[in-house]
């Protein structure tokens, strides 16, 4: 294990130790992010800027630290979703699924959860809940049933579904980009455990809420009266979007063969969809459409990532990551199995309370630093799956564990349903623990 080489460190102002300066800025930035007092993009960019200003990094190093593959993949998928949603596809699928179960309350809860999980596997979790939760609220309003169990289940479904693929959750995108693990690698490694976790989550929800849900025949008839075809507002755009999404996912699946990074596939797909959406339209309409699609991208998230990459590289260069990896190895006695399971459980507990994106950003170089100890980077595979499962599923533990949780709570609040931290955690934390126990068994028996 090698620590940061001070000889390669840029000169820090006042001759201060690069390690201490970088660590102080890093910890300070993370504390302000956790306090939620300032927008996280502002904090991350300020922290990254300060690292350069005080001399821990120079601008060239800072730019080289930014993982544009992660940013490009996120941006490309955001653009594709922003264009696709105008077609009404997501409302169509949600209504169709509710009618498939004859508008029975538990059936709808289950189907909406499945729809949310599947969408989340291919789209960003926050986008997924923004698209599906309003339809859930509409349906529960018509059924005259309490929306809380439905929304709770959708929170879990979005975080569980997002864990299944490379593109489902930002931690996976970051891990995939840093390690070269492909869409197929994630799907093959994680889907076999995600399906049982989903089932194991739905069973307690049925006994706790599902079996008590009742709706009158008349209210069910209202839902059955929904015409899902009317939800499709732009059939041409729908066909174009589905074609592009299918090709993009095919591209992800063939990533290793075609040797093209996911960011290129996603951004190219977005560009093709923008082209199709604007063909034959006048310049003003094109400008309006493109501006709309670009401005609706989650720029806060993208800028947050940009700042984080620089911050984490700052402490990596200063030697803190190596020291943390050494400390973790010391704590686990260099035992590979114990290290993997410690990463799983540690990630789950921490991600239940803090944002999993900065956590994973820090863990990636830390795990990479363990490569020499455990026989090279190829041997680290179980650690990556442990990090992914822990960080993504841990977010289900509390209301603040994942962005999607807070977005659902916000939408629910506006529709008159309140989510409270403790009330949510009483049910969510044990369910999250079940998912981590299953992940523990899966990693242990399959990979260790």
């Amino acid at each position, binding site marked *: 294990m090698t620590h940061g080489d001070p000889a390669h460190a840029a000169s820090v102002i006042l001759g201060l130790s690069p390690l201490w300066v970088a660590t102080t800025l890093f910890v300070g930035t993370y504390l302000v992010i956790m306090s939620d007092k300032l927008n996280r993009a502002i904090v991350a960019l300020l922290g990254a800027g300060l690292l350069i200003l005080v001399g821990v990094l120079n601008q060239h190093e800072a730019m080289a630290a930014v993982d544009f593959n992660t940013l490009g993949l996120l941006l490309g998928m955001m653009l594709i979703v922003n264009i696709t949603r105008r077609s009404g596809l997501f409302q169509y699928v949600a209504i169709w699924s509710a009618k498939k179960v004859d508008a029975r309350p538990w059936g709808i809860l289950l189907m909406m959860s499945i729809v949310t999980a599947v969408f989340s596997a291919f789209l960003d979790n926050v986008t997924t809940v923004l698209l599906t939760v309003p339809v859930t609220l509409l349906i529960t309003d018509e059924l005259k049933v309490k929306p809380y169990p439905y929304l709770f289940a959708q929170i879990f479904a979005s975080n569980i579904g997002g864990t299944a693929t490379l593109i489902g959750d930002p931690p996976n995108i970051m891990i995939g980009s840093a390690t070269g693990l492909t869409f197929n690698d994630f799907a093959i490694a994680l889907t076999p455990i995600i399906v049982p976790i989903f089932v194991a989550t739905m069973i307690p929800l049925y006994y706790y809420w599902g079996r008590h849900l009742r709706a009158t025949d008349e209210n069910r008839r209202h839902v059955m009266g929904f015409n899902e*075809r009317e939800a499709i507002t732009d059939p041409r755009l729908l066909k174009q979007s589905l074609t592009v999404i299918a090709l993009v996912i095919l591209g992800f699946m063939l990533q290793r063969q075609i040797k093209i990074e996911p960011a290129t596939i996603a951004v190219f797909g977005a560009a093709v969809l923008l082209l199709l959406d604007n063909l034959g339209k006048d310049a003003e309409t094109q400008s309006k459409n493109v501006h709309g699609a670009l401005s609706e991208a989650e720029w806060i998230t993208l800028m947050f990532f940009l700042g984080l990459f620089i911050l984490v590289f700052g402490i990596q260069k200063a030697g803190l990551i190596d020291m943390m990896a050494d400390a973790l190895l010391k704590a686990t006695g260099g035992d590979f199995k114990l290290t993997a399971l410690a990463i799983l459980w540690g990630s789950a507990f921490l991600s239940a309370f803090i944002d999993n994106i900065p956590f994973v950003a820090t863990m990636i170089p830390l795990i990479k630093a363990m490569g020499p100890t455990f026989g090279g980077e190829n041997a680290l595979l179980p650690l990556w799956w442990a990090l992914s499962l822990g960080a993504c599923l841990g977010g289900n533990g509390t209301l603040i564990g994942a962005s999607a949780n807070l977005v659902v709570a916000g939408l629910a609040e*506006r529709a008159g349903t309140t989510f409270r931290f403790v009330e949510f955690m009483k049910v969510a934390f044990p369910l999250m623990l079940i998912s981590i126990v299953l992940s523990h068994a899966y990693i242990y028996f399959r990979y260790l």
Partner: protein
Amino acid sequence: MNPPAIYQTVFPKLTDTDTIGDAMRRMLDDRVSDLPVVDASGKFIGMFKLDRLYATLLPKAALIGYGIPDLTFVSDTLGQLRARMRKVEPQAVRDYVVPPDHVVHPDTPPLEIVLLLHQGANNIPVVDRDSGRLAGMASARDLLTALQAGDKK
């Protein structure tokens, strides 16, 4: 002689104990889409707006501003909407009062009122600074009337 007022001092209004049914009838009779609401002492407490009333007919999911761009797939009939409205009618308007977008005062310069109307305001309450009582209502029509009266002079 004082110039003609740019606002009306005789105007339709509601008291906070009036019902939604009363408000609807008043709106139909006076052909307005919003009415000022005062308390028993005549103090202005806000506006009752038709769009707030229409919101009660809509599913809450359509009001959260995201995810439901239209409701063409919901086949609720006019009869169902009427039934929903019947449930709301006995409620007091005080539960539906919203703060006004703009308030002016009897001494507000006419040009400021013209600016607000130009910016899209309609039916602006004129409130006495000291007592908080509703002194009048200013609308685009009142402005036009006041301007024409000036021409005749």
